[in-house]
């Protein structure tokens, strides 16, 4: 019997759906169309097959997801992953936090930042720019969202311009979206 994971980890768990995934062989043409592209171009997962119950939204969402996380220019790849993790920590989406912490680590080859964030949250002992990004992402992910002129100023203070602030906003809020699907429609479990 697999066990539900409740603590942050960089070891990516298995995601167990609460909703029956669409059976690919029985999928409608609209569902198949929506499944042509997958988030981060990984294999068709149970998660995407659950979302395929609403193909109209899924098709657009996947393109948007990939664009926000991978399109060229603006904020660096790893800082977009940091925004994703900030939201996932607030929303306690263990699965999203694991996947995106691991991507961050693969990009930076520095595991200490994510360890700090998982242990200490907003008080993580990380460099000033990372801390400003984390704090912004966590405040933005609160309900109601916390964003003031001072929050924007603190990002400018560590060198982010309008483009980077927009990109950080998109990657953070995209995970407010993803967490609310991943963490409600299923749960992370140990083992395969």
């Amino acid at each position, binding site marked *: 019997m697999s066990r539900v994971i409740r603590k942050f980890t960089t070891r990516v768990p298995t995601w167990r759906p*609460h*909703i*029956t995934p669409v059976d690919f062989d029985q999928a409608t043409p609209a569902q198949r169309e929506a499944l042509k592209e997958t988030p981060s171009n990984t294999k068709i997962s149970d998660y995407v097959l*659950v*979302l395929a*119950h*609403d193909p*109209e*939204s899924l098709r*657009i*969402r996947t*393109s*948007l997801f990939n*664009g*926000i996380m991978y*399109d060229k*220019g*603006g904020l660096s790849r790893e800082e977009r992953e940091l925004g994703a993790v900030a939201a996932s920590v*607030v*929303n*306690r*989406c263990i699965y999203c936090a694991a996947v995106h912490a691991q991507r961050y680590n693969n990009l930076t080859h520095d595991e200490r930042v994510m360890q700090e964030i998982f242990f200490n949250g907003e008080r993580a002992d990380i460099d000033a720019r990372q801390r400003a990004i984390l704090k912004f992402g966590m405040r*933005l*992910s609160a*309900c*109601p*969202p916390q*964003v*003031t*002129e001072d*929050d*924007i100023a603190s990002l400018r203070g560590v060198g982010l*311009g*309008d*483009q980077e*602030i*927009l*990109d950080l*906003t*998109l990657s*953070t*809020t*995209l995970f*407010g*979206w*993803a*967490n*609310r*699907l991943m*963490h*409600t*429609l299923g*749960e992370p479990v140990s083992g395969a």
Partner: protein
Amino acid sequence: MSHVLEMAAGVPSSGPLADALQMRGKLMELTQASYEAALLPEDAGKLPTHLRAVLACRMARICQQEGLTQHYSTLLAGYGDEADPHDLAVPGNTPPADDQRLAAIVGYVDLVTQRPRDASEETIDALRDAGMEEADIVRLAGLVAFINYQLRVAAVLSVMGEQQ
């Protein structure tokens, strides 16, 4: 700019923020398309468009996002006087106790907007027990998740826009 989000946030038509949005033009188009898929879908299932507008309005108010509260109030008004008989567009209001399905939907909206971390398998079971089909549960989850994204992007853009 004809996109709901940028209009609601009052984004200036020129300057550094407008340039940044221009560079992410494709993503803002996809955001608009996601809005249409969530609020005005071709196949709404058993989650009708007027109810989607009610719930969106409720979430916008919970998140204190003025521009989108206004937008969703107008959208809702367009569905006529009978679209929200229990005034659920206002947070705190609850459906009549005998409408189990609507109560479960509103309960989900409030929990997943305010405290998504507290969602669990029981959250989905409550919807199923209230008679919702799985496809409609996914539609509802998609609507709530999208609106929470849109509200936060609007929150940042309106603060940045005011500074320019």
